[in-house]
């Protein structure tokens, strides 16, 4: 079902869950999966800048998805500012099956956690809930997600994360764009190919019983690469201005 070599997520075979998932009992909550979708989307937005000029339609659709999630989380009251940075544990841990997100919103009404309740209780042992980090004070939900506070500084962060991604490619000179891209097949945007070539796998988290979780993770080492909604603004600006 997945592109090249990517193993299927177990949750696509709910009837097979049985023994393979000994360590993971709870069905992932809606908000956990929504968070996971948010992280995935932010990673997609960042990564698509690496190849030829990003597909604007795709970027806009992903950005709209992020905005929808943000709006819903704001209404829920689950849109929180987390003060401590995560210890760098990759979103991989929280990327459990998001199939539940495909179901209609109406079905989810009963599943929404009460505001303020938090999601800790549904996670597997040992993992942290790292919410979306933001360096800014809590946003006014009315503000457009595109609002930018400090373009230059955010751009610097973004450039740093780009550089880190480039460095892991083990090419000589990240600035020689043509060399960098020469052996990349940019014909079809193939997320897992890019990721497996780019990113060193994050250390296994508590959910590694779920084999074949796709390695959708930014380099685990640096928190500046973290999906950070504060960076979304300048990511979009860079994307749409090119």
């Amino acid at each position, binding site marked *: 079902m*997945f592109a090249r070599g990517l193993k299927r997520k177990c949750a*696509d075979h709910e009837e097979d869950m049985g023994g393979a998932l000994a360590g993971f009992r709870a069905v992932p909550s809606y908000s956990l999966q*929504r968070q996971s979708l948010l992280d995935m989307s932010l990673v997609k937005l960042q990564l698509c800048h690496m190849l030829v000029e990003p597909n*604007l*339609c795709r970027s*806009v659709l992903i950005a*709209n998805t992020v905005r929808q*999630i943000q709006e819903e989380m704001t209404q829920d009251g689950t849109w929180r500012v987390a003060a401590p940075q995560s210890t760098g544990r990759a979103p991989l841990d929280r990327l459990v099956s998001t199939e539940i997100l*495909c179901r209609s919103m109406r079905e989810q009404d009963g599943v929404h956690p009460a505001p303020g309740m938090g999601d800790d209780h549904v996670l597997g042992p040992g993992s942290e809930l790292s919410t979306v980090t933001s360096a800014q004070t809590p946003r006014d939900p009315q503000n457009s997600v595109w609002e930018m506070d400090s373009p230059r500084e955010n751009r610097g962060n973004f450039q740093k994360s780009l550089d880190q991604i480039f460095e892991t490619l083990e090419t000589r000179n990240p600035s020689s764009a043509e060399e960098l891209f020469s052996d990349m097949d940019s014909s*079809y945007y193939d997320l897992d190919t890019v990721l497996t070539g780019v990113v060193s796998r994050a250390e296994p988290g508590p959910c590694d019983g779920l084999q074949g979780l796709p390695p959708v993770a930014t380099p685990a080492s640096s928190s500046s690469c973290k999906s950070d909604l504060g960076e979304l603004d300048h990511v979009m600006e860079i994307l749409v201005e090119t």
Partner: protein
Amino acid sequence: NFFSTPKLGMLYAPPCCILTTDIISTVEFNHSGELLATGDKGGRVVIFQQEQENKIQSHSRGEYNVYSTFQSHEPEFDYLKSLEIEEKINKIRWLPQKNAAQFLLSTNDKTIKLWKISERDKRPEGYNLKEEDGRYRDPTTVTTLRVPVFRPMDLMVEASPRRIFANAHTYHINSISINSDYETYLSADDLRINLWHLEITDRSFNIVDIKPANMEELTEVITAAEFHPNSCNTFVYSSSKGTIRLCDMRASALCDRHSKLFEEPEDPSNRSFFSEIISSISDVKFSHSGRYMMTRDYLSVKIWDLNMENRPVETYQVHEYLRSKLCSLYENDCIFDKFECCWNGSDSVVMTGSYNNFFRMFDRNTKRDITLEASRENNKPRTVLKPRKVCASGKRKKDEISVDSLDFNKKILHTAWHPKENIIAVATTNNLYIFQDKVN
């Protein structure tokens, strides 16, 4: 009528399917159907020509053989933005034939080119001052004069670029469409549509511009555009939000205000985070009659009556079984695949591609549909293609394929239907299949 035979889809596999070395990115028959053009990721155009019917072997129509191959676009580098401009051919559109030569427009992300394809099957011989190999003769050896004559030679097909329409698009071109006046054409990118005259390359008119003043407010892009087949002042464009706007160029120079807006209200019971993405229209095509238009979104094909804006008149589900898999398809990016669709010559059947090298046809009159597979392994040559079925859930019957066994790398994005006959061209990633219905 193609579907009037008892068996739905009497298509059979010709003895050969055409292998290409690069990913096919567009397929288009010319107006007579005699020629079939393909564009690929490497910037090449390959044109196939139908053999003249063989009277002896009357059980099949002529096969398609390579007629001409040329390099249409080369990769470029945009130094200002430090980004590559791909040479991949996004679209090819044929001009109607006016003389012995054929003309087509081919485009990559940024530049449109008009190509002339002409045949040469005679050459002049008997020059006085030149030898046959081109060397000049010593004039003193010329004692008599003769008139050069044309002698037959092996057919040579030459392609030459006649016009290059460049530097008019900031964003990636997704569509080109030739006007019914055969003098102008439009080109559409993500945010703008330009109108060109075929003879004029140094300027174009901008007729649609949806770029917001502040790019951070961008939430919608243009995904496809097409001129009406009969009204030279009318065109439509589709968007990533599932809307189609019909514009009349007589109303104003800048067609920012649509004449009609086609949009189906969302089904609230199906709403999810992926609703918008799957509503994004990947292709729009007018019927030959000009009375209807067809749109393709991720899961369905819709037929719209131009006189009714609030909902389509027909909706066909292409692969509804994918609705529960949207999250995985978002993750592996398949949800962004842009499928095209096409009409048959009489507008009675529509066709579109799917995954696992499947393609689907819908008969608008009988409401029957069929799923077929473009592969050599699974189809014996000269046999009728076997219909396929995907098992969405529950027990899988024999010969059915379960959703989870589908190969999402094998996608059929580009299909084309001969304008007059039941011959179809179906492009898998690397292969071009040409199927025709059984002629008794």
